[in-house]
């Protein structure tokens, strides 16, 4: 039976890494090994988890420095004998061990603009063509693991920016609302007010780490930036507005 060499963050902000050796079975994922560690050596090890299927987004942590879902990282990815470092999401306050307080994200969720649907048709239904909703389907895959929020350097390295920055997960939600075919909420409000889109410098770490493979930067953030360019910086639109007197 192979042995994993784990280096696990223990404690809170002033905690420390502690090294363990844990035997594991073929086919196990990192979360399985953490559970075995918890069951055999450290019953007080705090780790948040739920579905073990990569769909609940609970077991986010940093494995060898990369934000990941513990339940989706197979042990075969790490050569036997290599030390595997497990740390909590470093952007958020540590509650204990591998568990962080992600409540800041809930605050961002509450600040999102609401969807204002246009009136229903005469029969009381609202209809959307498939071609109009295809684009938004990708955004609905988000499992809110907050790995993208964790890796974003805007707040990871500069926590003072948390006051005016929604983060990549919520840019995905903004894009979902802004592109909704039935929404009547003003686009300018969606792209321009208070969400800190300007902080994003397109370094694409959020896209690189997304376990659902959502093209966060290309399909959500850049289109939102481009909608703002439509509003304020497109020379042809500026000329057209001057000529027509609109806007």
């Amino acid at each position, binding site marked *: 039976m192979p042995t994993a060499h784990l*280096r696990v*963050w223990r404690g809170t*902000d*002033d*905690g*420390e*890494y*502690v*090294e*363990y050796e844990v035997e594991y079975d073929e086919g196990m994922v990192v979360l399985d090994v953490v559970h075995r560690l918890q069951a055999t050596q450290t019953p007080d090890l705090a780790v948040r988890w739920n579905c073990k299927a990569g769909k609940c987004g609970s077991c986010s942590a*940093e494995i*060898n*420095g*990369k*934000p990941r879902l513990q339940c989706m990282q197979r042990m075969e990815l790490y050569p036997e004998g*290599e030390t595997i*470092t497990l*740390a909590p999401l*470093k952007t958020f306050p540590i509650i204990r061990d591998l568990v962080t307080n992600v409540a800041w994200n809930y605050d961002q969720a509450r600040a999102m603009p609401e969807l204002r649907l246009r009136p229903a048709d005469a029969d009381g239904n609202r209809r959307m*063509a498939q*071609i*109009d909703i295809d684009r938004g389907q990708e955004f609905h895959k988000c499992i809110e693991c907050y790995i993208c929020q964790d*890796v974003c*350097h*805007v707040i*990871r*390295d*500069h926590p*003072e*920016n948390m006051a005016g920055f929604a983060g990549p997960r919520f840019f995905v939600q903004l894009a979902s609302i*802004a*592109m*909704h*075919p039935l*929404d009547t909420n003003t686009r300018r409000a969606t792209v321009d007010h208070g969400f*800190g889109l*300007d*902080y*994003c*410098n*397109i*370094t*694409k*770490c959020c896209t*690189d*780490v997304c376990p659902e493979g959502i093209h966060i*930067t*290309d399909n959500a953030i*850049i*289109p939102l930036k*481009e*909608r*703002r*360019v*439509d509003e*304020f*910086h*497109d*020379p*042809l639109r500026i000329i057209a507005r001057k000529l027509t007197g609109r806007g």
Partner: protein
Amino acid sequence: MAQASTALERRYGDTQRTDRWWLEPLLVGSGLLIFVVYSTVSGVLGEYWAFETEHGLYLSPFFEPLIHPEFLPDWFSPAILILWAPIGFRTTCYYYRRAYYRAYFLSPPACAVREPAGSYSGEGVFPFVLQNAHRWFMYVALLFIPILWNGAIRSFWLDGEGIGIGLGSVLLTVNAALLTMYTIGCHSLRHWVAGGLNQFSRTPLRRLRRRLWEIFTIANEHHRLWAWTSLIIVGVTDLYVHLVASEVVTDPNTWSGPI
């Protein structure tokens, strides 16, 4: 059993990553630096940028279209009148922004690697707010596509000799093709054709624009590939025209006899 170790990283460059995260910014930074130095030397200081005809059977893409009014002094390179457009287009390009923010500004040097800056303001402040000019440069880049294709097609014709083909013709054609792919894969162009619409189904024109958006999206998904290949080929083509025009190498072509 349990051994104490170091605390969470708090300083520049600190990371728990065990892979070679520094390799990509190093390669990207070196590649961009090489191109910037080469294009400056070649376009601004160099000679021998056209070969054979008045406007050049092979005209370096750095000089296409050739604008060379007589009132300009001899030391003034015609490339200066051209290069501002591709430089502006690439500098404000969403892919290149990712590349040079990581490689030169170390903001961040790689994902989950601590960056050096003590504060960060993003693209909302000068000079980074100028990135919004990408739409302007995109319009200019669209004008350059037919101009570069014109140069490529022209390279298959030699006055007095007629149609033929040479290695330079091939390079100029590949250059025009890759620059076309890079441009139609542009995020701004992709958005411009239909990305701002929310109801594609409403009219036939909107459905057509949606179809174009889908096609441009295919190119956009490989924007990095087109960015690098088009950058490399434009440098290689320019170098080749220089070497042929300065008679360092001989162009294999059908006008001089069988290749």
